[in-house]
């Protein structure tokens, strides 16, 4: 592993070089990821976008140490993903809220805090703060099934934020929600990111979502999963949903769409 010297003053949080991952299946090897080079700096909001099967979720899972790469190198906060996971370097938000049905919302948010051995007082302080942050104050004693899908996903974001990781890994967190709720949560997420200056890696298959949220968009294409294009966004940090009508936004969205189309073309 050779940590690359940071080109700018921004500290590198995730450093991926020549990374590949091949699953051995009964039908032969499946090249989920091949030749991935990516450097994500502190405070960035990076989206992975691509058609299904392009390996965007797998790449996120490799960063989280939920999958092991079969080649190349990756470091998270200067450590191996395994060490970073043991140090609880990141919060992970899954496609589904994955709240435990026998715990109230407050107790679900307390789950990582209990595991990390925080005191009761510290736990309740953090529960209150993070429920406020995702606009769920007042729902502490409700069970997950009593909440709508959007509220459940917000609770799962509060759970990921509760132990205050600097890095947030989000795997299509709003994929199952309707457009209105998704827009609203996108805005909230952006405000949260702006307030806390966390590094966010975000997997999505929605072009407007990727462009609206990101400082950088990584377009992946399938078979084998690899990076097709990396698009820097020059949209201002302080964005509202209206920006989606602006020519700058549409220009970036157009380039993402072109990338997705080109990546798809030699499919059939």
């Amino acid at each position, binding site marked *: 592993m050779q940590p690359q010297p940071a080109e700018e003053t921004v500290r590198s949080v995730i450093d991926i070089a020549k990374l590949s991952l091949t699953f051995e299946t009964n039908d032969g090897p499946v090249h989920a990821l091949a030749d991935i080079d990516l450097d994500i700096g502190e405070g960035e909001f990076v989206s992975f976008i691509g058609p299904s099967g392009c390996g965007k979720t797998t790449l996120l899972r490799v960063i*989280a*140490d*939920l999958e092991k790469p079969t080649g190349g190198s990756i470091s998270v906060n200067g450590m191996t993903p395994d060490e970073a*996971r*043991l*140090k*609880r370097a*990141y*919060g*992970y938000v*899954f*496609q*589904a809220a*994955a709240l*435990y*049905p*026998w*715990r*109230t919302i407050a107790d679900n948010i307390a*789950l*990582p805090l*209990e*595991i*990390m051995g925080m005191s009761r007082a510290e736990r309740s302080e953090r529960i209150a703060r993070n429920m406020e942050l995702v606009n769920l104050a007042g729902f502490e004693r409700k*069970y997950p*099934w009593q909440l709508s899908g959007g509220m459940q996903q917000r609770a799962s974001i509060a759970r990921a934020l509760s132990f205050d990781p600097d890095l947030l890994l989000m795997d299509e967190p709003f994929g199952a929600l309707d457009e209105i709720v998704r827009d609203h949560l996108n805005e909230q997420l952006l405000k949260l990111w702006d307030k806390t200056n966390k590094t966010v890696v975000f997997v999505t298959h929605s072009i407007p979502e990727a462009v609206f949220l990101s400082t950088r968009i990584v377009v992946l294409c399938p078979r084998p999963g690899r990076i097709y294009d990396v698009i820097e966004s020059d949209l201002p940090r302080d964005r509202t949903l209206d920006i989606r009508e602006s020519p700058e936004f549409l220009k970036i969205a157009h380039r993402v769409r072109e990338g997705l189309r080109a990546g798809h073309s030699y499919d059939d």
Partner: protein
Amino acid sequence: MTSETLSPPVRSPFAGLMSGTAGPVLVVVAALLAVWYLAAVMLNTPFQRDIYKRGGLEDVSLVQLMTDTLAQDRPVLPSPHQVAVEIWETTAEKKITSKRSLVYHSSITLSSTLLGFLMGTTLGILLAIGIVHSRVLDKSLMPWVIASQTIPILAIAPMIIVVLNAIGVSGLLPKALISTYLSFFPVTVGMVKGLRSPEIIQLDLMKTYSASASQTLWKLRLPSAAPYLFASMKVGVAASLVGAIVGELPTGAVAGLGARLLAGSYYGQTVQIWSALIVAAILAAGLVSLIGLGERIVLKRMGMAR
């Protein structure tokens, strides 16, 4: 859209009776009793005809024959009301310290049932935890767990009693161990399934917190397994009761429902046998519904009952 006036639905006079659960249950019970009475008359008729022949009685009316077949001392199949009277006399009308009180015998059997069930459930949970956490135990233990249940309990029960007696263990424990032997199995199987029931995403979540195996067990696997535990405990407690009764048969035990069954069969006291059987069935139903009650309370407190 039509705007016809709707005529009130015509209700059958029995509609109310059959709409709840009480109606259907009553119908089934009545049908069972009818079959029972019919069978009692048919099975007891040959002996009754013998009695008539020896007494030189002829031209006995059908009604007389039926009445007599349902009132024999040692019938092949006692009639339901004979059994009901016997149960009443041996429970309500006897002191519970009496050796002829079914309450006394039931309490003996119940105590070893409960002890055995407690040990069986504990053993079952511990085995399941081991099996879920260790591949070696999964491969090595599970076949034995299954094989243990293919041995007829009637064959192994006397062995357990004899061996334990030889090392000086007697009384409640040997019988309870037979209950344990029968009741750990459903709990093991149910809990293995229950402890493996968390979704991958829930397990991944624990991994992202770098939770230890014991944290994952206490905070995820065991709560997920709660519904499975209660389902398997219902089977386990019934098996436990069977184990306790079977445990009383080969020991020449003087007390307990099993002893009562055995004594009844020595002396051809079929009414006594049947009343012990019915009481055992009532006991089993009571135990199972108690666990059902516990299940409802616990799952409600866990927020899992809606």
